[in-house]
């Protein structure tokens, strides 16, 4: 039985269990912390840095999704400083690849776009990279558009941890990092892919989508994948 701990979130005392992360505890307590790479039911990787929080006595910002709670911890989930950094993160994501919402299948249903709107991002403050990115249309039913990928790796984890196929991974480093499947084969040629579409459903943007949907038509069902994931292995 995990030991009970008590922490303060934005000044309120909240009960938690040892081993839980700040994000889990805060969300359970009804606190809003934005996140793109985190998804309930999947392992946390702290990739997107949107869930950063301030912890008293710690000189740097910590990702809530990978930081375990400690007894007596005092966490701030919202401040001017956090808002500034979170906006910066979304700014970077938007400038890194080619995100043209107006012509995207996920326009209106995109988590990245939703956060940009929530944060009031009307302009991107960094120079656009305009990288030349491939579009993989080789799969019969799905499309992978690297232009819209934010490397959250939800697809990597859902495939490995829930479907058990581990088709996806990341290749290269830094700004050259790319999603890759089965030693860099086109999706349509990947033999380990079961075609279940979980990766598509958890993708927060229009990077992975079902083929044939016109602009604005692709809606994702990440909630049902989360539900499925939490039912596996007796997890809560």
């Amino acid at each position, binding site marked *: 039985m995990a030991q009970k701990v008590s922490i303060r979130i934005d000044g309120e005392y909240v009960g938690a269990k040892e081993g839980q992360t700040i994000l889990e505890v805060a969300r359970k307590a009804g606190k809003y912390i934005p996140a793109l790479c985190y998804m309930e039911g999947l392992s946390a990787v702290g990739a997107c840095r949107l869930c950063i929080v301030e912890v008293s006595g710690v000189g740097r910002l910590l990702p809530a999704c990978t930081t375990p709670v400690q007894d007596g911890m005092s966490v701030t989930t919202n401040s001017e400083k956090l808002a500034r950094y979170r906006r910066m993160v979304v700014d970077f994501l938007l400038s890194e690849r080619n995100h043209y919402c*107006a012509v995207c299948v996920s326009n209106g249903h995109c988590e990245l776009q939703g956060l940009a709107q929530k944060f009031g991002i009307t302009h991107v403050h960094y120079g656009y990279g305009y990288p030349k990115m491939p579009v993989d249309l080789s799969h019969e039913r799905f499309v992978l558009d690297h232009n819209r990928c934010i490397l959250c790796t939800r697809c990597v984890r859902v495939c490995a941890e829930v479907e058990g196929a581990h088709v996806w991974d990341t290749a290269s480093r830094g700004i050259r990092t790319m999603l890759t499947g089965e030693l860099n084969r086109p999706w*349509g040629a990947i033999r380990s892919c079961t075609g279940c579409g979980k990766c598509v459903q958890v993708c927060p943007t229009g990077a992975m989508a079902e*083929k044939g949907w*016109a602009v604005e038509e692709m809606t994702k069902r990440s909630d049902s994948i989360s539900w499925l994931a939490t039912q596996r292995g007796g997890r809560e």
Partner: protein
Amino acid sequence: MEKIVINPVTRIEGHAKITIHLNPDGRVSRTHFHVTQVRGFEKFTEGRPYYEMPAITARICGICPISHLLASVKACDEIMAVRVPPTAAKLRELLHCGQFIQSHALSFFHLSAPDLLLGMDSDPARRNVLGLLDKYPDIARDGIALRKFGQCVIQRLAKERVHPSWTVPGGVNAPLEPGAREEMLKELPGAKAIARRTLALFKSVVDEFQEEIENFGTDPTMYAGLVDHGGRLQLYDGRIRFMDSEGTVLSEVDTPASYADYIGEASLPDSYLKAPYYKPAGYAGGVYRVGPLARLNVADSCGTPEADHEFGEYHQRFGRVVQSSFQYHYARLIEALYAIEKAEMLLSDPSILGKHVRAKAGVNALEGVGIAEAPRGILIHHYRVDEKGAIQWANLIIATGHNNLAMNRSIEQVSRHFVDGSRLKEGMLNRVSAVVRAYDPCLSCSTHALGQTALRIQLIAADGTVTDELRT
């Protein structure tokens, strides 16, 4: 030799300039119409999934996105090799009627009416829609109301007025709501009354423009427009009919894919706008016009009662084949009335409320051509894809492009008649701009380009220095 440059030309859609070369005695020797923007939609769409093309190419234009959407979804329908459900085809046509109504209202009231009603030589500072509102508030309000009606038709069907996502490859993505149909039918009589009033107004003033009628691009050309099997005017779907200046039908294009047998495209050294020509006649002799003037020339009738009545009167007054580009305005107003009547017919058809509005399929053909009439003339979208559906090649021929050669000729004719370099007046140059406006060119569309909206005229001396420049 001197040169006058009109740069930018105003009250048109897109960015252009005109250069007028003068002889030493101040008379016009030759003219050039330059479209000064380049965009590259055909290039940067390479590699994109074909079903994104409607949304991407619609961004070519904010005024006629519906026409691009329709030509694009029609090309995609061909790639999927599907039959669009009949209700969806009717809904698309109804949407296009809304587009014609709003675009024609914009062209006539907002862009050209200041020339026609306030006068070609009136104060340029007041020669705009605000000046019109001041002097003829009822007419200006009519224009705004008519355009609003067209935009509301688009909004009621497609949920958004500009760049909607409702038209999709295979049909449309939602059926028409009965309530929206009622609303449109309720608003329709008001719009029809405006179209009637405006036609009556135009007919009462058209004779005052005798000099313009005789000199605004009267060189005979061929004409091209879409007609149905009965030779009636078509906006959404039909066969391209080519007609010579005497009224003889030269050919009808049976299948969209064979357009390239009839239309060649030449590049001009001084413009980013390519110059399509009627291939069987060759580049030099293949000048044809598209748009309202051409459509009413090639069609045997409109196919709606009131528009047909106006069609008859129009041809009685100006002949079976109307040559003067000034009459683009007249033809445009008849088409606005036609679009309202056609919308009424479609809305009154009970099957318009059908629920089956989309056919679904993957890639079944590697090439697709979509042809529709845009408000400014024939619009062609032609795509090639690989087996996976990635665009390999795209060719877009835009309405204004077809008119490029004819527009150049009209500019030269107007300049020769009205421009006197020895005593240059603003009104002279405004007539040069006005002939461009008669064509209602959309230059952003035609080059699929980016730029500012305007047109300039320059006066250049024999040694090449610009001695005068006018921003109209």
